[in-house]
């Protein structure tokens, strides 16, 4: 049964969407940092009576540097239309529950249960013991995370320098340098970051954030900004705004009641994920040999896309840019608006049920969590970036992905994708053995990781991706940062001009 949606949403259709506070929302949430380089710095608050003062002093220094969404959008547009690079440094700031409590705002620390206890306590993730973490081990948990983005290393060096000796009693507990790889691939060689939801909402009274383009009539009943570009209500990623409903692809659920300081803020997951390229290549080559297929074929099955990003769910291997996400699993998609259609692949004949992109983003599938509309409510905004050199440049170097994502419900979004879907073999598709997500899925120690693939099942004791720790954080709005740094309410803070520093 198909839902009734217009063949193409128009700009007028978007007029019922909320006006987004682009001068308040941090640009790392929307639209993200497109720069090729990033520095991520983690600071730890002192203990005792100095905590609140140290946190406020640091935030007073950091807040003017934070890039608002409006500036981020302008920067992104310049990069796209005029190929402008090197346009200053963008910055984002996120705070731990401990920091929020130190600032006298336990209501923000408890905004989300998982935020309140911290990533190190979330054992269902099946991460290595937190004592062994490289990032955020006990005593070195990150209280203030600063994300700096620019194209030039010199710019990043200059912006980062003051943070390396932060003063105010804070301690530098984490520093990571990240850079996008050529072709936007991750270290296993696959193009990454292809599939992202688009936020509904207006940038001004007549302009939607995501421009609406002609669309073929879609059988999954969802709203799209363009083929493959699914629209979600912004409350799924920003507090205080209408949320995506678990029963309707198009109608919003009311905003969740939250403290005023939480409005336009978001929950950030930060994880350092080391990638063992040699192990991935060797182990998958052995699996491929056992199944009498090419290693490249098997690796694509594990990912769900070919290295160039073309999805296995589409028949052709040369999809255009508008076709990379124009496919479904339970539903075929039609041709039209300049894109070709694609057949359904409900049982995983082309894209295995265990494929990474299918496990953590089941798209139009019904899942163990409910109807297909509900599947949309699990989506996250990914903001990850690789770290370390290409394997060929230095095989012994540390490399991987700095995984960052935004949401407003850690348990129902990031944790569900990892704990329930990536880590469990019987989910998310009902009635089928899905297998483990062999890219990121984890089992209990000593238990093989297994997945069914088209020619047969594979099993391995090798981890290709090893979590090295991280943090759950709250990314406040810029006015909230000002209020927190001033120890005041939202109404008593000054205005700062939005900019990239």
């Amino acid at each position: 049964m198909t839902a009734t949606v217009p063949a193409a949403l128009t700009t007028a259709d978007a007029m019922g969407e909320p006006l987004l506070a682009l001068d308040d929302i941090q640009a790392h949430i929307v639209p993200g940092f497109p720069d090729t380089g990033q520095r991520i710095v983690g600071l730890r608050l002192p203990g005792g009576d100095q905590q609140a003062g140290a946190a406020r002093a640091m935030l007073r220094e950091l807040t003017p540097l934070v890039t608002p969404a409006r500036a981020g959008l302008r920067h992104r547009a310049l990069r796209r239309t005029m190929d402008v690079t090197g346009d200053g440094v963008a910055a984002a700031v996120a705070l731990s529950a401990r920091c929020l409590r130190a600032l006298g705002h336990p209501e923000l620390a408890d905004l989300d249960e998982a935020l309140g206890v911290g990533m190190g306590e979330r054992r269902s993730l099946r991460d290595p013991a937190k004592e062994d973490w490289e990032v955020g081990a006990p005593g070195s948990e990150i209280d203030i995370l600063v994300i700096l983005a620019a194209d030039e290393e010199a710019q990043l060096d200059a912006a980062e320098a003051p943070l390396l000796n932060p003063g105010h009693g804070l301690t530098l507990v984490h520093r990571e340098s990240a850079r996008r790889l050529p072709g936007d691939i991750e270290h296993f060689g696959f193009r990454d970051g292809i599939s992202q939801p688009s936020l509904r909402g207006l940038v001004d009274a007549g302009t939607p954030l995501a421009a609406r383009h002609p669309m073929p009539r879609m059988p999954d009943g969802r709203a799209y900004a363009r083929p493959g570009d699914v629209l979600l209500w912004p409350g799924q990623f920003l507090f205080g705004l209408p949320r995506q409903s678990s029963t309707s692809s198009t109608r919003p659920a009311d905003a969740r009641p939250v403290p005023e300081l939480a409005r336009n803020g978001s929950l950030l997951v930060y994880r350092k994920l080391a990638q063992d390229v040699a192990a991935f290549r060797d182990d998958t080559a052995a699996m491929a040999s056992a199944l009498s297929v090419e290693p490249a074929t098997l690796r694509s099955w594990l990912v769900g896309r070919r290295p160039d990003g073309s999805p296995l769910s589409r028949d052709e291997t040369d999809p255009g840019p508008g076709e990379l996400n124009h496919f479904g699993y339970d539903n075929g998609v039609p041709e039209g608006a300049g894109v070709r259609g694609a057949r359904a692949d409900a049982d995983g004949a082309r894209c295995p049920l265990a494929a990474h992109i299918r496990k953590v983003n089941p798209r139009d599938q019904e899942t163990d969590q409910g109807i297909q509309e509900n599947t949309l409510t699990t989506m996250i905004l990914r903001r990850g970036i690789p770290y370390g050199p290409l394997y060929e440049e230095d095989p012994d170097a540390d490399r991987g992905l700095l995984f960052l994502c935004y949401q407003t419900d850690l348990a129902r979004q990031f944790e569900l994708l990892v704990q329930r879907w990536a880590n469990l073999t019987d989910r998310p598709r009902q009635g089928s053995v899905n297998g483990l997500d062999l890219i990121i899925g984890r089992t209990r120690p000593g238990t093989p990781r297994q997945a069914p693939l088209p020619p047969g099942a594979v099993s391995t004791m090798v981890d290709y991706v090893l979590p090295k720790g991280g943090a759950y954080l709250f990314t406040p709005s810029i006015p909230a940062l000002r209020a927190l740094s001033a120890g005041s309410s939202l109404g008593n803070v000054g205005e700062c001009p939005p900019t990239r520093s």
Partner: protein
Amino acid sequence: MGSTLAPPANVGDLDETQLQAWSAVVSAWLDSAVDRVGGPRRGRFFNAARTPPTSTPAERRIVWDAFPRVITVSNPGNRAAARAAADEPADLGTHRFRAQLFQGDDEPVKLPFRRHDEYCEWFTDRDPATGSVRRFVFTCEGPEYWQFIAAGTAAVVDDLSQVPAESRVDGDRELLLRLYRELVGPDVREEDLFHQSDVYLRSGGRKRVIRQAGEYNPNNKWNTTHGLVHLTHPSNTLSAEIFLGADATVLRAGPDGTPVTDAGRLICCAEYGEPNRSSDPTIGADVNDLVRAGLTVSLRDPIGLYLDSIDTSGLSGPDGEDVSDWWRPVRGSGPLTLRAEFAPPAGATFGLADVRVNGVPLTRAGQLAELITMALYGIGFDAGNGAPQPQGCTGHGCSQVGNPDLLQIVAAGSGCPDGWTDAFGADDSAPAFTAMPATVPAGRRLTRPSLP
């Protein structure tokens, strides 16, 4: 009759006569379920005890989460509030009759039940002296099995003629009391388990008896406020699940003839369950999926709802100790667990108050329920009939304005109530496309358990 149908998880409570009688009860439910969907012309449901499959049936494991979805979506983003809400007792009079119930000489009475409507209910067993938690107990046993033990065949089928006389039994109060004492404690008295006077509603000055004196009381204190033996939520019945499975074998189509297949629309179109649960839409859609593949379906023997598994990876002691062995099946085992407890084993050096669930102190059983996967098993075989012709919708879904995560079903062709709006697009509320009559055909009287 062909083969016998075992009690859930093959539990060994019953003697041979009782086993045969239980099989006859379940078989009668299955017969009613087949009739309910108008036989093989409209649906594709079969009674394996009466007509064994002609080929090896395929199995389908259908899973869902134990924590009530309706409570989760009513408390968006606030797990603690959802868990607290789940532990608030409900009253059958208020819930079902919107009225106060009475017993004896107009004495107001409540018939408590739990809000846990995903076929998994729990109880927090506290030390009466200290108030500290001794164990968290979970069950997925439907009430009918216990009504059967308490009062025999007549208590669980409306139409006794569907059960052969030689397969009927009376209740076994001695067995009931023994099992209650094993599961809850030695203080249980037989009279606690049965209504001592009629329970009734007052309507226009007249009494309407809903429970008779001497009848087994599923809402007795040892199964509600003071303990847990079987499911209490009015929707948590095994027979209802069988009927849902049967109803879901009817294929459905929208007004334009397009098949209705997705779980949300299907349950509203066919009106076979509660759309706000995780379980009912999931079970229905999976069964419907088998029928669309040309299979004739039923539920796998032993027919039951099961505590399939618990993900214990998030549980730890105060210093990170592994407490996965604190989860202990008590009735059934493995993926066919009917009852389980989470409690410190003998010799434990710390107690439940020290256990953490993903870093959060374990204070409510709902934290464990969030980790539990429920399951039932469908079977299907190719009877050579192919898929039946789709029927029109008899209902459609409405979603609450402001919180469209909450649904209700209304009759096809009718509008949504004030404060509610069509859930899945305007087309679904139009009069039904009808390839064949969309009504339940006249036939044998439907056999349903005597609830409430």
